[in-house]
């Protein structure tokens, strides 16, 4: 009899090799373990072992063989056992359970099991402790370290246990909360949560005093006390995460707030200016939608998942990507996700920041653990879902040490009409059944929405982390997109993300009027959840559907046939009431109007901040070639190939411009997919953010972001009339007037440049408090704020395959820089690495830029442009070098300079709106005609040799392409 199955790979696995390399220890072995809640007799043990292992590559450990097998690898002396904490999603265990149930059918009914990773080493105890720190996260896993002998003993005596969620059996009785208390007591509820009978607190609600007073007033008018569920629901619905209070607040003299004036305002202005509106769905739905061709709509949404990724990088990032996939599934009647995008803003993985949430305890995870976890989380989420992830970038700066920024985006596609009805329109009708489909509900991410709106401080709840399960979601998604949607079986759909059911049902009910929900019907992962927990839980992989009663049976049957659970949990009603019951007791009854609009509106003031000037750094003397090597190998420019090759960008067979471009594989600024087999139109994607420019001038910073994101699509060959953009503001300390000033300035630039380029915003999201408050290793209190970061994502339609460009010139091509190069080195990569001299920050001149872009577009369509690359970080010098690496062809650059600009300024300035292009000599005459009156400089030609050379009147400096490629492709230290 045994209660554990432990499996060992015979050959060294990749994971073992990397562990051995990382810890410089050849005696490391990993065991996959499964602990059962019941004892297995010999027959079952053999049968199950066979089901979950492969006897060619693996060995099953038994009481008889364990000594012999393990000692054949090494004399292990330490063991670490890593298991998920009770209640944390254990995807492997779910699969194993399913295989066993399917195969053993009724002979083996009720059991629990948990998966575990056991790592054996021969070494010192410090070594195993170090390994455990790198391999496990104490927030979601239990880590047990013990001597090898004890492990053997446990094995022989069946002393492995699975830990189940142990929640006290509690009978729910309606809990009413007295709000007629002192302001101090009231704010405690907001900050620490509702007080339980045992005086403990549930965890932050993120409600400020004003909001709690508004709640008190509402309930005193209706003459009763609020229930705990009502307060929890209001906290979710009114959270910054859901309501974007800062963006909608009156700010200085802007009555309507910056969202309405600058973001939505820009789009409205553009639609008014242009006669060819291609926007289909703006700001109201889960994603923004534009027209792709006459039959199809594409939608795009970008989300952030910063705070959860700081606590559990892998879980946070995987939840981020599968979460934003659901935004597409919840766009209109359900769009099919066809591409993922990512952007990570991280601390230097090679540095040890040693930050603590509490004095001398509760340490922040190491920067390299965070970086690796985030990269893997999106890999597993994207790859397992069968959605290509072609487009992304990574940027490093010390100021992300307290909070990493994790942007995850998804593009979706949906037919314009489904059974004759417009697919982007949806409406839950009174009488429609509320159906919850997908995963079950547990304590996952309780208080996620309220907590991500708060700064990361010692009281942040640790249960606020969820782990996504892409396979459950994939199963659900397939049923919705392939089967239910096209038969028009439901009237509305939305996803369950932040705030869980309370948010999804609350939002959908706006379409019908109101809702009645019976919470006891909601399927749970384990018993013992309080009704308020069920209502706000952020358990993943769930969609909420509004289904006409006549279709309900059919819909549930379809889900079940594909191994997906779907449950009736209530209905939508006409009356504008939000009603929640639990076993017939009414525990929530609010007016919809108050639920959605009852929160006190903020009134914000801004003030001009002190500008933190970059400290002067003496320019280090070195050769031009040396400088190029330093820049191209710096973390923000160096190739991100190692990410591109681990993210499947080929699935769905749509990849047409890949992340790695040219024979020399250069990481591109934009990528393209061709989503339909029967239309040659493609979708080009790019994104840009310049946190490094933010403190100097937030207005110009935002201008640069929009310009770069737009330019990259123009360069790739997109139709300038079919480019839309998305805004993701990640700000810091948004309760401070000078940060709000920067916000207002950036938003103003969004309006100005979007309107100038006539590229509408279609969707956006903001995250306003990306600050870390804690302690350094000496116990001194520190606050680390991210630099204000505005990620602009761009999506555009490329009309013809022949419009798509490449970045590789051919022998004999002449090279030109389109656009003007100024002395704009401030905050540049050059200034950071080589040194800083008197210079200005890059400023976008939209008139000049547009002239360049329109002319480029024209020239490209006429086949004049042979190759092109957008010039950004590292300036012309880096663009030229990348072109040479990509094509493996030598280039010669003429440094006869005009405008009193120095060689370094010319080569490394980050002036915006510039494109490096190449063309055949015989195209030059036509080119000149098109570019008459527009800035351009002929800078050299493609020689086809093996060097990049720079010539001025006196000398020629050469660098070998293969050396540059080596610098460009070196590993990022710490990753």
């Amino acid at each position, binding site marked *: 009899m045994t209660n554990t199955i432990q499996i060992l790979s015979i050959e060294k696995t990749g994971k073992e090799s990397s562990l051995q390399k990382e810890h410089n220890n050849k005696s490391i072995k990993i065991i996959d373990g499964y602990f059962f809640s019941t004892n297995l007799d010999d027959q079952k043990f053999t049968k199950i072992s066979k089901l979950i292992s492969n006897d060619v590559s693996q060995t099953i450990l038994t009481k008889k063989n364990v000594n012999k097998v393990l000692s054949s690898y090494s004399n292990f002396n330490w063991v670490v056992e890593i298991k998920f904490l009770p209640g944390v999603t254990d995807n492997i265990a779910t699969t194993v359970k399913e295989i066993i149930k399917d195969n053993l059918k009724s002979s083996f009914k009720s059991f629990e099991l948990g998966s575990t990773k056991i790592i054996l080493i021969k070494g010192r105890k410090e070594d195993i402790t170090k390994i455990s720190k790198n391999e496990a996260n104490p927030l979601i896993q239990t880590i047990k370290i013990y001597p090898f002998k004890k492990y053997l003993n446990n094995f022989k005596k069946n002393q492995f246990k699975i830990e189940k969620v142990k929640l006290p059996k509690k009978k729910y009785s309606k809990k009413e909360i007295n709000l007629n208390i002192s302001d101090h007591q009231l704010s405690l509820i907001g900050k620490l949560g509702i007080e339980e009978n045992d005086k403990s607190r549930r965890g932050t609600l993120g409600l400020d005093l004003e909001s709690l007073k508004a709640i008190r007033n509402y309930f005193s008018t209706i003459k009763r006390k609020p229930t705990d569920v009502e307060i929890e629901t209001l906290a979710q619905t009114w959270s910054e995460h859901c309501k974007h209070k800062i963006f909608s607040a009156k700010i200085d003299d802007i009555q309507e707030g910056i969202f309405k004036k600058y973001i939505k305002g820009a789009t409205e202005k553009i639609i008014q200016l242009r006669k060819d509106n291609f926007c289909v769905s703006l700001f109201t739905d889960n994603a923004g939608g534009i027209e792709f061709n006459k039959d199809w709509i594409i939608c795009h949404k970008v989300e952030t998942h910063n705070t959860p990724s700081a606590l559990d990088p892998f879980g946070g990032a995987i939840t981020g990507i599968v979460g934003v996939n659901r935004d597409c599934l919840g766009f209109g009647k359900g769009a099919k996700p066809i591409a993922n995008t990512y952007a990570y803003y991280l601390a230097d993985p090679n540095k040890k920041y040693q930050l603590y949430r509490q004095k001398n305890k509760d340490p922040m995870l190491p920067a390299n653990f965070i970086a690796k976890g985030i990269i893997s989380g999106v890999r597993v989420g994207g790859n397992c879902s069968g959605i290509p992830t072609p487009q992304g970038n990574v940027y490093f700066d010390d100021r992300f040490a307290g909070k990493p920024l994790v942007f995850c985006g998804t593009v979706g596609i949906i037919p314009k009409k489904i059974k004759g009805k417009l697919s982007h329109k949806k409406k839950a009708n009174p009488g429609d059944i509320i159906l919850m489909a997908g995963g079950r509900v547990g304590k996952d991410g309780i208080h996620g929405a309220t907590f991500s709106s708060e700064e990361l401080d010692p009281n942040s709840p640790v249960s606020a982390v969820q782990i996504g399960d892409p396979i459950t979601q*994939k199963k659900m998604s397939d049923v919705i997109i392939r089967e239910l949607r096209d038969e028009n079986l439901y009237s509305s759909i939305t996803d369950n993300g932040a705030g869980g059911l309370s948010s999804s049902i609350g939002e959908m009910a706006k379409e019908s009027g109101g809702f009645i929900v019976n919470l006891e019907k909601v399927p749970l992962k384990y018993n013992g959840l309080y009704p308020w927990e069920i209502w706000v839980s952020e358990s993943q992989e769930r969609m909420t559907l509004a289904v006409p009663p006549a279709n309900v049976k059919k819909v549930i049957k379809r889900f079940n046939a*594909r191994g997906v659970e779907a449950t009736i949990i209530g209905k939508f009603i006409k009356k504008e009431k939000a009603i929640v019951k639990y076993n017939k007791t009414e525990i929530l009854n609010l007016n919809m109007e108050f639920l959605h609009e009852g929160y006190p509106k903020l009134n914000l003031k801004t003030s001009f901040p002190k500008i933190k000037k970059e400290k002067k750094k003496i320019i280090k003397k070195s050769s031009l070639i040396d400088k190029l090597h330093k820049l191209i190998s710096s973390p923000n420019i160096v190739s991100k190939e190692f990410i591109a090759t681990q993210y499947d960008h080929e699935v769905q067979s749509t990849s047409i411009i890949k992340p790695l471009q040219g024979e020399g594989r250069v990481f591109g600024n934009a990528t393209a997919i061709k989503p339909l087999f029967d239309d040659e139109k493609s979708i080009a994607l790019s994104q840009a953010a310049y946190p490094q420019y933010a403190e100097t001038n937030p207005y110009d910073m935002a201008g640069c972001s929009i310009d770069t994101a737009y330019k990259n699509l123009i360069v790739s060959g997109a139709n300038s009339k079919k480019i839309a953009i998305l805004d993701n503001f990640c700000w810091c300390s948004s309760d401070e007037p000078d940060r709000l000033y920067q916000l207002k300035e950036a938003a103003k630039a969004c309006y100005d440049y979007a309107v100038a380029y006539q590229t509408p915003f279609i969707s956006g999201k903001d995250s306003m408090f990306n600050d870390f408050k804690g302690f350094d290793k000496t116990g001194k209190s520190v606050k680390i704020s991210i630099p204000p970061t505005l990620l602009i994502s761009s999506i555009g339609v490329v009309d013809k395959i022949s419009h798509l460009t490449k970045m590789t010139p051919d022998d004999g091509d002449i090279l030109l820089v389109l656009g003007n190069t100024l002395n704009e080195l401030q905050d540049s990569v050059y200034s950071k690495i080589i040194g800083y001299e008197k210079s200005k920050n890059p400023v976008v001149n939209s008139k000049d830029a547009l002239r360049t872009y329109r002319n480029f577009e024209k020239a490209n369509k006429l086949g004049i442009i042979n190759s092109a690359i957008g010039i950004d970080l590292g300036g012309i010098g880096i663009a030229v070098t990348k072109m040479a690496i990509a094509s493996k062809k030598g280039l010669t650059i003429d440094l006869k300079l005009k405008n009193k600009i120095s060689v370094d300024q010319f080569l490394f300035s980050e002036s915006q709106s510039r494109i490096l292009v190449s063309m055949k000599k015989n195209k030059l005459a036509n080119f000149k005609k098109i570019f008459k009156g527009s800035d351009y400089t002929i800078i050299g030609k493609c020689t086809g040799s093996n060097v990049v050379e720079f010539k001025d009147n006196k000398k020629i400096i050469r660098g070998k392409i293969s050396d540059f490629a080596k610098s460009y492709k070196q590993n990022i230290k710490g990753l």
Partner: protein
Amino acid sequence: MNVLVLSGYGINCENETLHAFEVVGFKGKIVHINDLIQNPKQLNNYQVFAIPGGFSYGDDTGSGNAMAKKILTNLYDQLIDFSLKDKLIIGICNGCQILINLGLVPSLNKKDPEVAMIENKSGSYECRWVDVKVNNNKSPWLKNISILNLPVAHQEGQFMIPINLLKSIKANNLIGLQYINNHKKLAKGQFPFNPNGSKDDIAALTNQNGNVLAMMPHPERAFYHYHVPNWQNNTSKKFGDGYKIFMNAKKFFA
């Protein structure tokens, strides 16, 4: 000519796989594994059974294992029967891992899996284009093909084969595809030409009849010329190399 393309539980390349078959002239249908289990007799209507790529069961318990066990429990006899007829079976990437875990390939001793798919030597997921050469193999899938440029995208693409078995695989000529380097010579395990460290640079195996092909690279992702990296340098052809595999299936029944 009808093709059944399997779907469900995280398989995710069914649309593009079906498309490739349709373009060369097949009629086809994507069938969810649960529907096939409900009604296995429908297999009689098809000449080709395709298991596309994907992440069935999230690779939990080893890539392809869980789906293979589901097939083993519910559909094994029917599939064996299919493989013994004058019909074709292809498993691509995750489909390859499933066929290997089922033991349908190389199927030399007709019991239990003989080969295992293990993690790439690099320890990481590899999405990249590779060149493979076709061995002198009698498989109808590979007829008249010499070299193919195709993408791989997998975490567990390393074929692990016991030495004795490898000998008989070679003796029976069951190696379908092998990774080659930029000089068109066997990659000899060298990364990135051999992306996963597979022994003898094996990228695909067949059964003895050659009608069952288990291949790690994705022919459906190299179907049109614009799928191929840097296609702008060569726009003369309409199709990529993957097309040839599907055409061969058509020719087999033509």
